[in-house]
């Protein structure tokens, strides 16, 4: 049959001649290739000290944002928990008391906000669902740990640092 692409190559399997049977030319060729690699810069990134640059839309650990006055943006509407396909997010809402206006932006806030990092699939749907721009997956890689319970991150690990500190 006629070849359509003309890329077909006929390969004959000839018996090796004496030089090829001695393997030496091929071995020297191989040795020169490995020697070239010997002087190449290593591609290794020594992880804890050096970090690979992430792409701009990398989704890492979540952070709960504060607004320009340093108040928590989250209003505990629960849309993030509802949108989460892995059911990783839970929260308990609470009402803002008098004198707490500098802490929470809305009248309702999340008293407890927990994300189970073992369940989370880092899809970013919570980020998309949030009407208050309160949650973003803009953090680092979630660090490893020994116990399952330590992977349930509360507000102490999730909320951004206050502005004045």
């Amino acid at each position, binding site marked *: 049959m006629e070849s359509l692409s003309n890329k077909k190559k006929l390969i004959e399997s000839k018996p090796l001649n004496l030089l090829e049977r*001695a393997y030496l030319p091929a071995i020297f060729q*191989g040795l020169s290739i490995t*020697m070239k690699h*010997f002087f190449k810069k290593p591609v*290794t990134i020594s992880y804890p000290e050096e970090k690979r640059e992430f792409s701009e839309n990398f989704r890492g650990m979540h952070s709960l944002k504060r607004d320009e006055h340093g108040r928590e943006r989250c209003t505990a509407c629960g849309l993030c928990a509802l949108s989460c396909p892995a059911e990783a997010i839970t929260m308990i809402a609470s009402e803002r008391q008098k004198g707490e206006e500098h802490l929470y932006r809305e009248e309702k806030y999340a008293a407890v906000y927990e994300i189970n990092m073992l369940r989370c699939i880092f899809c970013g749907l919570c980020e998309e669902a949030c009407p208050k721009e309160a949650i973003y997956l803009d953090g680092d890689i979630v660090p490893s740990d020994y116990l399952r319970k330590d992977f349930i991150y509360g507000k102490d690990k999730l909320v951004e640092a206050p502005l004045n500190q």
Partner: protein
Amino acid sequence: MELFDIIVKLVLIIVIFLLSLVIAMYSTYAERKIAAFFQDRIGPNRAGPWGILQPLADGGKMFLKEEIIPTNATGFLFIVGPSLAIFTACIGSAVIPWGQQLTIGSHVIDLQVTDINVGILYIFGVVSLGVYGIMIGGWASNNKYSLLGAIRAASQNISYEISMGLSIIALIMLTGTLSLRHIAEQQHGFWSHGWFTWNFFRQPLGFLIFIVCAFAETNRSPFDLPECETELVGGYHTEYSSMKLGFYLFSEYINMFVSSAVMATLYWGGYNYPGMDWIAAHTGTVVGPLIGVAVLFAKIFLFIFFFMWVRWTIPRFRYDQLMDLGWKLLIPLAIANIVLTGIAGTIFK
């Protein structure tokens, strides 16, 4: 023999023994580092600066691991195997001349443990003993994979010893002596009577055959079939754990060191280097020979590097290819080399 001589010999033996252990230890580190460089990696760099404490950490691990002797193994032989392997690896360096004679005052110190007049035959004996460690270990494990590895090691070593011996015969036809000291002295300097003095330039083909056989005798890649992981789990040391495994791995590196020393002495001039007379005349009778020792070790390290370079370049031979290469190519070549050496010897005499 005077007391002084005995003490000197004892010190020499201990120094060489420790040196071969330390070199074997750091060969493991060098192997990992060099493998990393060949593969565009960094290699071990966590234990100490640049990872130089890595061999100590590995050794500590080997000593502290649980020692397992399988119930069905032949207990006594199971222990004899690795002991024999490391023992034969260590005694090989006894006949290697490390340098010229040192003269301190009225004392003349020979930098060689013993100058027996059949040094090459001694090396051959030790090399062929080396396979016993592997064979006994593999057989005593009472494991099919170990046994297969041991059989491979035995047949491989026997096949390659023949061509190794034949390549040496051509060398002995040139040198006319079996003593390694005399062979090293004959290669004095670098250039005399219009040709290089080093035996490599008189026996290039012989050296090629010898180095291929040295790879096979030390069970190094591409001839590492006895411990072929992909086919035989771990080869002859499948059942070994803790320091007994360590001894097997260690003996491989000591073998590599000794065979590098033998190759450097037989073919690459040993402790001789260009311009050695001039340097010896200007530095005295102690520093001059010591520079020669340093030169010999530089050659040895180059050979060890070459061993590793080849290991990380060439894939393992298939078993039939290994036998083909040994019996159908190397032995005819070695015999042709003997004939050529004889013809050349009669023409140029």
